[in-house]
């Protein structure tokens, strides 16, 4: 019993408290590009976006609204999308979630999943549209090729949210 509450009073470094969410989102962006296989179609879920949504839905007060800009910039650099895609879309997602959660007073698990699913679908479709309209360095095949990836992302989001909660327990005193 004592061991269980031993960590309650201990101080945590600010780097751990503030840095963990940012580091995990960046790691999520980086992870798909580390997979040592050459994928012939988008297969791996956009883990960076899912981590961002997981943290945002878990801790609404954690970040200012503009956090999507630096994190999105890193995501664009790492994933090879045209720079600005994730910057714009992630910020828009955060603004939309912000305005939605003002209206929703009671929130539960299912609503979080619904919000995250809508965000994942929206961002994937919009980034596809960006690349089809402006992209000159690739991308922009048929939209149906994104379907397996989107489905996988929606189904695995609860797993990511659970990891965020676990990391949250680890990072906070």
């Amino acid at each position, binding site marked *: 019993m004592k061991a269980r509450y031993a960590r309650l009073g201990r101080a945590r470094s600010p780097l751990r408290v503030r840095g963990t969410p940012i580091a995990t989102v960046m790691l999520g962006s*980086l992870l*798909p*590009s*580390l*997979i*040592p*296989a*050459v*994928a*012939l*179609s*988008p*297969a*791996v*879920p*956009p*883990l960076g976006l899912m981590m961002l949504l997981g943290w945002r839905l878990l801790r*609404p*007060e954690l970040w*200012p*609204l*503009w956090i*999507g*800009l630096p994190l*999105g910039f890193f995501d*664009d*650099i790492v*994933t*090879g*999308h*045209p*720079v*600005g*895609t994730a*910057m*714009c879309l992630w*910020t*828009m997602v955060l*603004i939309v979630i912000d305005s939605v*959660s*003002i209206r*929703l007073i*009671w*929130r*539960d698990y299912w609503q979080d999943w619904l919000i995250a699913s809508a965000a994942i679908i929206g961002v994937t479709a919009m*980034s*596809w549209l*960006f*690349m089809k309209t*402006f*992209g*000159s*360095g*690739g*991308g*922009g*095949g*048929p939209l149906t*090729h*994104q379907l397996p990836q989107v489905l996988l992302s929606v189904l695995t989001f609860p797993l990511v949210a659970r990891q965020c909660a676990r990391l949250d327990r680890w990072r906070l005193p």
Partner: protein
Amino acid sequence: MAPPRKRRPGYDRKAQYGLFASYVIAITGAIAALLLVIVSAADPAGFAVLRASVAEVTRPISATLRSLVLTIGNLDEVASAYISAGGQNVALRRQVEATRTRLIEADALKQENIRLKRLLGLADEEGDVVASGRLIASTSSGSRRIARLDIGSRRGVETGMPVRAAEGLVGRVLWAGLNTADILLLVDSENVVPVRRARDNIPGISRGLDDGTVEVRALNAEGNPFKPGDVFVTSGIGGIYRPNIPVAVAARVEGDRAIAIPLANPGRVELVVVQRTFQSAEARAPGIVALPPPTAAPAPPAQPAPTKPAPVKPVPAPPTASNATGGTTGNSAGPPRP
């Protein structure tokens, strides 16, 4: 659970301003990011320096993982080779005996080929390899089909160079960092390759479909001349890919196009080779008159001017040299000097 009410700061003036400012920054930033995306249409390899530095950091991780995966992937092959070693040995020895004579014949044919080519004044098609490397990772979460190569500009890799494996074409270099480079794969929908049918030279255009296959459309034929089983090779038109690199084999026919499967599967090839772009390799080849680059339109009329006075005076040798390296400024300065 009711969410924490941080977003409504109440009467705290400072918190109100902070919230307002964060909204302003976010919305301005989103609009600026949208403009960045539009600008990136003109420069697909934008922020290449940043991309390259991240790639440098992740390169050892991906390379190690990749070699690990390849080892594990080949384990079954190694094991089965051990099991059937004896019988295979006998069969292979017979095969070597049989192929030896054909190899000698092929050598003779090769020599004859070289002689005939020299007779015709054709450029040598070998010797255009810049470097060889491995594909270590790819954009598996994005809709662009880009693979990462573990060699870069330090080994001579440059933007636009074609990349091929032993089996066939893989793609072209999108940008090159010091020790890494990104390759736009053949199967990306932005990668257009001029091809011809290997059997009878019907020209076509291959374009990726983003799902591991490419579509081939005939350039000038009525209807669809292609049939399943047709093999396509590069035609050399356009100046990037040199001719006769195997590209794809047609799997089925849909309307006015053929759906083809690339001969080199980038998920399975181990070693790839970066080649010089076709036109620059041609210009480099000794004994061949350098073709004027298509962009420099005013160059051809200026070129005879410095060569004309050459028989009269031996001096204008330096101006021709500066012509070759200096571009348009050398051309305009050349004629008034003699």
